[in-house]
């Protein structure tokens, strides 16, 4: 197997799965949309038209924003919050930002440490928080995109019912926006919480998401 594929198999497989699923969502979403169109005596639309529609846009964005919120919160909260016995948690005496020596920054950096881990000042501060910054930015961006596409969809339905359209500020206070948002958030929080607690007692041999099979339930912050 070419070394590139062996070394990057996890990312490659998930990229392929993502592309397959988002394409499948477009096909199924367009079919569902067109069934609704026919019910209302309106013409069906093509796949190329559907993938640039607000209907598809809001469906994709509402899911993306919740995934990135999940990672943002998980990355942030695991700095300080612990779960005894979980491989998702740090060890019980390591809550907080840890020491420079533990984090291998500044004078404690290794020769092959990333460049910004070796320096002092704002660049190191940024790099120390880069994962949170990027995840958080993507979350905010996709949540904003959800609000814009959701607004277009919401206003289209209002016009269909001979009602006034509303602006963005009104829309982000509407049940439609929060129902879309919270239905996604609840599943993300459930997933993380489940994983954190189930991994205390259950095992998956060979997976770094699990403790080693023979690890005691009380062992915290160990990987399989």
């Amino acid at each position, binding site marked *: 197997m070419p070394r590139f594929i062996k070394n990057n198999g996890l990312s490659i497989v998930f990229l392929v799965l993502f592309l397959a699923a988002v394409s499948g969502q477009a096909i199924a979403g367009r079919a569902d949309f067109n069934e609704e169109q026919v019910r209302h*005596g*309106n*013409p069906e639309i093509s796949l190329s038209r559907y993938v*640039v*529609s*607000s*209907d598809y846009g809001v469906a994709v964005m509402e899911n993306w924003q919740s995934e990135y919120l999940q990672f943002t919160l998980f990355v942030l909260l695991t700095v300080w919050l612990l779960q005894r016995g979980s491989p998702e948690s740090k060890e019980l005496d390591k809550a907080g930002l840890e020491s420079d020596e533990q984090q291998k920054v500044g004078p404690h950096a290794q020769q092959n440490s990333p460049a910004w881990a070796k320096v002092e000042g704002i660049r190191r501060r940024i790099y120390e928080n880069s994962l949170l910054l990027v995840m958080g930015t993507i979350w905010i961006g996709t949540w904003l995109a959800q609000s814009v596409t959701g607004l*277009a*969809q919401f*206003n*289209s339905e*209002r*016009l*269909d*019912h*001979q*009602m*006034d*359209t509303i602006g963005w500020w009104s829309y982000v206070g509407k049940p439609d926006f929060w129902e879309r948002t919270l239905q996604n958030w609840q599943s993300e929080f459930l997933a993380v919480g489940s994983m954190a607690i189930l991994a205390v007692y259950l095992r998956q041999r060979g997976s770094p998401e699990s403790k080693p099979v023979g690890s005691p339930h009380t062992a915290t912050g160990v990987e399989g």
Partner: protein
Amino acid sequence: MGAKPAVAACLLALALAACGAGDRERDAAAVTEHFHAALEAGDGQAACAELSEETASKLEQQEQKACEEAILGLELPKGGTVTVRQVEVRSAYTQVAEGGADFLDEGPEGWKISAAGCRPTAPEQPYECELEG
């Protein structure tokens, strides 16, 4: 794809979408103005041609007359220019200067009026329309 070309592609797509939206608003406004101009000219057939099939059919059933005859008997603004126009997905809202709003749907033959001579009622309630599909 590198970051810069990707950003440029996104901005271009947004710009094209914005231009497209402007064209569609103008098309919807043109249909509205043509409809009200036909009413002013007493041309019921031309006015009915701007209606959606469902709306024209409902009018004929309600009035028990052909559309081109029934439409001229309704209290709809005659003539006028569009002062407000808005497109959302495949629905549009237009308002003529002389008052009254029209709602349009986009179909295979372009924009068609689904409701005309509409006025607001209570907040968060549908408009009341002289002509409805």
